[in-house]
């Protein structure tokens, strides 16, 4: 039985999982599930993941959710190069230290522009300027902490080599970048880090992974973003209401 990865590449954590699996040549079958088309709510998918979220991994009978858990599982199961999730204890827990902070300060914050600029308008909702400003400030604070505490003088986050932390972080940051926010402007240290990560991953892989998100504004202008099916409205409303 081959490994299956259920992913929607519009989603940042899905891209991190995809990039990791591809870069490490892990054999898997991509099962594309699109939030906007209601795939996550289908009975079929609900039976695989009762939380109805992506990314989801299915390895025979073993089903796993949560991108951090999936990345760790893949790195150990497929014995990827040590630098991704180092076996040395102190280096390893540094990855967890980043992922803990990431869950609080990055996740949920950097995804907001896609919602305010593309997804909410699709269902006729306008997110207030106040919230947009608040999100902008939250992103700025997070980027400062990312630079000061996690990048510091390292080449990568808490490390001299690429780890799971770097791909989780970068795919989150690419979300607003795709929406026209130049997060790296005026932040040469972070820009240099991004270049190093992308050089390591390979431009082709990065482009391929980010195909859907990179031209999202164009899609929105041409009205080629899939119109959300009514069943996903409640989830979309809920997500929009979570924007502080």
């Amino acid at each position, binding site marked *: 039985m081959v490994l299956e990865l259920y992913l929607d590449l519009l989603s940042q954590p899905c891209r991190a999982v995809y990039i990791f699996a591809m870069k490490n040549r892990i054999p898997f079958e991509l099962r594309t599930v699109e939030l906007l088309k209601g795939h996550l*709510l289908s009975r079929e998918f609900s039976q695989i993941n009762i939380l109805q979220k992506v990314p989801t991994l299915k390895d025979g009978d073993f089903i796993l959710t949560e991108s951090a858990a999936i990345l*760790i599982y893949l790195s150990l199961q497929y014995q990827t190069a040590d630098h991704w999730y180092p076996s040395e204890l*102190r280096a390893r827990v540094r990855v967890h230290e980043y992922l*803990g902070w990431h869950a609080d300060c990055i996740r949920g914050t950097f995804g907001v522009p896609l919602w305010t600029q593309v997804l909410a308008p699709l269902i*006729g909702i306008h997110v207030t300027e106040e919230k947009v400003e608040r999100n902008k400030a939250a992103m700025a604070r997070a980027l400062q902490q990312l630079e000061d505490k996690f990048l510091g003088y390292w080449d990568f986050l808490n490390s001299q080599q690429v780890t799971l932390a770097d791909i989780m972080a970068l795919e989150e940051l690419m979300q607003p970048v795709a929406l026209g926010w130049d997060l790296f402007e005026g932040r040469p240290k972070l820009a240099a880090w991004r270049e190093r990560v992308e050089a390591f991953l390979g431009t082709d892989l990065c482009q391929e992974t980010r195909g859907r998100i990179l031209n999202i504004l164009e899609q929105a202008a041409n009205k080629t973003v899939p119109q959300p099916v*009514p069943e996903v409205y*409640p*989830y979309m409303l809920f997500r929009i209401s979570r924007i502080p």
Partner: protein
Amino acid sequence: MPLELFLDLYSPPCRAIYIFARKNGIPFEFRPVELGRAEHLKPEFLKVNPLGKVPALRDGDFLLAESVAILLYLSRKYEVPDHWYPQDLQARARVDEYLAWQHTALRSSCTRAMWQKMMFPVFLGEQVPPETLASTLTELDRCLELLEDKFLKDKDFLAGPHISVADLMAITELMHPVSAGCQVFNSRPKLAAWRQRVEAAVGKELFQEAHAVVMKAKDLPPADSAIKEKLKPSVQVLLHSFPPDMPFVELDTNLPAGRVPAGLEKRLCAATATILSKPEDRVNVTVRPGLAMAVNGSTDPCAQLIISSIGVVGTAEENRGHSARFFEFLTKEMGLGQDRPPRSQGRLPGGSGSGGKNIGLDAWRPGF
């Protein structure tokens, strides 16, 4: 130099680490950091954790922040029994999965529930709007449901047959709203049974000792203004999140735009606000005229109204009442006759934590 753990037992992850270290006989020096005195923001502590948060660890020259990182470090360094954080790939993946989920789900609703119910009014002297608290408690309820249905299921513990760090993180988190008087376990026998098992596995005495401080939080004297000023920026976010309902109304009709009364969307907005008792500025209305619609095989003029509202909506009885009032409004506005009695349908669509209920009203035919 011995291991130092910088903790405030008011904080759930700190309690988890305290219990874990004590239960496993890990020698450490307890370095108290009083959040209520803003000690986590002082320069001395920022040297230990520049992120200004507890828990934090110092092992000689090694500084570490973040609860999950600390638990893993302690598990491996002190070679605790395997069940706490198993080496087996799939078993540990279950622990990792829970630890990842709780960050963005349970932690948030437990902290806000406790703060909105107790800390804001008692400690900071700030009243919290009842709708905010209600919406937070609903969300907490949804998280508890997920905890039971997705993680616990029929197992004895969250990640398998034995207690793990996942259970410690969960139980200490749930004790937070309990300390504020929220009934977390009373109506959930499965969760209550799990709690008993966790307490037994940890040891009742240790469990109670770890929770002594937070269980007395309701007796805290109010903070002085200097402390309030220091804490306010970081705790404001606990008030902001998740505003009350945003009712979302869609009216689809095959009547051409010219036949739909001008300004209907505004009046429908106002009517929705009245019927659902929600602020008008939170109501979203979309009217779609000129659609190709067939109801029961007929393409006669008709309209369909769908109302989605997340969070607290009401009982089936209340929904039927709402339906009737919407129907009355639309009949007057659009001169419609009723084809069938309107019915309410409750539906819980997916998406983690979303509890939307659709009041789907049946299609009408106009009386002309």
